[in-house]
């Protein structure tokens, strides 16, 4: 029986780096899970680009809380969008878990969801739409400003339904 939850690729940074790209993602899975444990050089958030598409094909809706204020926020018709509402300072640790459902079909736009947790700044959950019917074959992660620092870990897994 095939394994149902497989690592596709993983990166642990040994030096400060501007971006992390998972390329040549096979279309043999049903869903993708991306786990990012970032360390930032500057105070910033992570921007995600699919298939090198830098046009305004993205939209997003978040809900968030920082311990005193909860709210919701959205963006539409934007270029590659950040996946976490709260910025992270270089001293704070945080984590993102992203789920991409049905990422390899070629008939629908792609929806993905993110949960971001930073006990120092706040927590947020977001849903994102990439208005493109192409299969997702690459995902680029990059800080909004500055670099990822040494020790950043990013791993992408594939989930099989069969």
């Amino acid at each position, binding site marked *: 029986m095939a*394994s*149902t*939850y*497989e*690592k596709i690729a*993983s990166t642990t940074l040994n030096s400060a780096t501007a971006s992390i790209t998972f390329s040549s993602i096979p279309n043999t899975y049903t869903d993708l899970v991306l*786990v990012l*444990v970032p360390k930032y050089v500057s105070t910033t958030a992570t921007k995600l680009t699919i298939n090198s598409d830098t046009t305004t094909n993205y939209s997003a809706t978040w*809900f*968030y*809380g*920082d*311990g*005193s*204020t*909860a*709210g*919701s926020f959205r963006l539409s018709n934007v270029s590659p969008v950040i996946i976490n509402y709260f910025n992270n300072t270089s001293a704070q*640790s*945080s*984590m993102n*878990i992203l789920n991409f459902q049905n990422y390899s079909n070629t008939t629908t736009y792609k929806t993905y969801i993110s*949960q*971001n*947790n*930073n*006990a*120092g*700044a*706040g*927590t*947020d*959950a977001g849903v994102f739409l990439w208005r493109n019917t192409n299969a997702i074959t690459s995902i680029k992660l990059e800080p909004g400003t500055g670099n990822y620092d040494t*020790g950043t*870990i990013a*791993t992408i*897994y594939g989930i099989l339904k069969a």
Partner: protein
Amino acid sequence: MATYTLISSNVLSSATSSVTFSSIPSTYTDLVIRASIRDNVDSNQGAVAMTFNSNTSGYGAKDIYGDGSTVATFSLSSIAYGWAGTITDANLTANSFSSHEIYIPSYALSQNKNYSVYSVVETNSTTAKFLVSGGGIWSNTTAITSITLAINTNPNFASGSSFYLYGISNA
């Protein structure tokens, strides 16, 4: 090595005050706990209290929740446990249990430990329904080798509550 592996599980056959996963190997990258929980006290409104390595200091959290009418947020700092989701009380709809997923990345590395929580209480009543998303931190650089789950207001987990610990490897 398999990528997503069951390390240990515990399905309770009687009311129990705590569940401990001990001797957790350091061979995985991340840990995931999936639990289905009910307590044995009416109107308790407790939450899962998670401690690592029997250590009771250095925990903090920020969470958001909705109950169908209100969205709110809360913050915890310098508390004795990791907050990991509201639990279904004994007086709520029979046979209903809260669901919890706790994700702990990089648990064996020498750095402070983040974790995320996603939990729900849904009872088909107006009394209790919570959707919680949040995260916490244990400000300790020691590798996690044991995890204890209890209830912060001290009742027991009810019979039928289940707890599963998985290891995820990116090797």
